[in-house]
């Protein structure tokens, strides 16, 4: 239902409805800003890129695909745009098709946890997430923290859905592997204390 509404807005926008476009911008800006900030610590660049992206979309609205996942489409465009922008500004010799640097910081909010055991487990997961490869981090971020589906992630990263699944499985594997040792250690601790 939500997706249906998004799509209707998008189609209205491609037909030139500026209020539909404004609604899309309002809705997507926070997500885009969050995602963009993973590629550049300079918030001004991120804001500029988002605005440029919207201007570009408006100019080319007639030629845009009508049936898209709006969120994934915008994130994918923004990702490319920031990457290109970075390359041009810094004269970075890195080829445009290479993955841009994705930086994300995971944290554990202590306020939620009264139980020391759960807190340690949470920290354990956080530490694992901090150390997995960048690609896995980005997929985990999109899946868990931006709530994108497999096909949407594939679209954002320009890879196949199967690759997304593989990357997710690899990330899960490292999380579970690190967890197990900690989990059994803690259980043991638990029994002794009680």
């Amino acid at each position, binding site marked *: 239902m939500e997706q249906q509404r998004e799509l209707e807005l998008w189609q209205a926008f491609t037909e030139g409805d*500026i209020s539909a476009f*404004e609604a899309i*911008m*309002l809705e997507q*800006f*926070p997500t885009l*800003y*969050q995602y963009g*900030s993973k590629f550049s610590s300079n*918030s001004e660049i991120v*804001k*500029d*890129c*988002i*605005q*440029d*992206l*919207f*201007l*570009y979309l*408006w*100019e080319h609205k007639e030629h845009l695909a009508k049936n898209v996942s709006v969120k994934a489409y915008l994130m994918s465009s923004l990702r490319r*745009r*920031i990457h*290109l*922008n970075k*390359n*041009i*500004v810094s004269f970075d010799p890195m080829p*445009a098709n290479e993955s841009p640097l994705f930086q*994300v*910081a*995971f*944290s*554990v*909010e*202590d306020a*939620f*946890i009264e*139980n020391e055991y*759960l*807190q340690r*487990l*949470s920290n354990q*997961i*956080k530490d694992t*997430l901090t150390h997995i490869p960048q690609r896995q981090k980005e997929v985990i*971020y999109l*899946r*868990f*923290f931006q*709530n994108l589906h497999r096909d949407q992630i594939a679209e954002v990263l320009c890879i196949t859905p199967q690759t997304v699944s593989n990357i997710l499985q690899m990330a*899960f594997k490292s*999380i*579970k592997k690190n*967890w197990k040792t900690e*989990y059994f250690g803690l259980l043991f601790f638990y029994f002794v204390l009680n």
Partner: protein
Amino acid sequence: MENYKYCSLQDLVLDDFFREWVLLPTPELNAKWHQWLSDNPERWDIIQDASVIVKAIKVEEPSISQQEIRSLIQKTIHKIEKKKEDGAEVLSSGIKPLKIAFFQHTWFRLAASFLLLFALGWLVYERYQTDNLYDKFVTDNKSKLIEVINKGVNPQIVQLNDGSKVTLNAGSRISYEASFSGNNRVLYLTGEAFFEVVRNPQKPFLVYANELVTKVLGTSFSVKANKFDKQVVVEVKTGKVSVSAQKGFDEKADKFKGLILTPNQKVVYDREVEQLTKSLVAEPILVLQEKEVQMMDFNFDDTPANEVFEVLENAYGIHIIYDADLLKNCPVTAPLSDQNLYKKLKIICKAIEAEYELIDGQIIIQSKGCK
């Protein structure tokens, strides 16, 4: 929901459906999960724990106020509307990310590829052209020619009608007119060969090899003119040879404009810069008859250096330039029979504190004299 009966804490934490319920609950999700929990009350604890962990792990997101977002969007809308009024103005002119560097344009890449292909093709063509100088010579010559190709691995000796002898190296080819009926004895070569030419002043012997023409009356010399070498080399063993670039060479002209080579000299033609350079062969040999060689004695004992150089000059047929007045006070004592020319020069120069240089196929002795 069957699977959730047995899944572990970690499975729950990493489960999409579970996370969705915890993070973005909807009435439908709530209903489903609560129903399931009332059916499986023993799972209550683990569901509690998992939801605590799911909620606790966060990503640090930058903060931006709703107000700022609104003002940024207003700016964008404003630009769009301004454009509508102005009509012609193109928005994207001010958009940085659209400025793709010139080398990233598809058309540029295409153009570059074509240029590269074209350049390669041209290079190959050029190569092919110079490679086939020999073929060109052969087809341009209207007389009936004999071709000899050495397909073996050992040098092949070719006896010519006039009594001259050609030692053809492996993989090399020569073409020539069997009877040598013209004014010159003409021969075309590609590859390497050593020539021993019978003397006939009325009919000079001409060797066309790549870009060089070698003209002799009667001597022995070798020519290296391989297809892919960067140089063409003519080395003289005996007699006199004149070498000219084939460009601008006229068989009928009386005067042969070229470099004159004497024994132990060689000429190197650089095919890239089209330049002839005269120098000495790597291993100069004695030019004397065998009888004279036996009488030759390179064991010097207190001999003035100028006399030593005179002996060498005669023995190798190489012109040595030196100041006889200065050197007559420099005695040389050295047994030099076994060394080659360069070794001999080195030893002598060390003894008299002089230096030698090879310039234009001659040897120049630099000395300050001896006291």
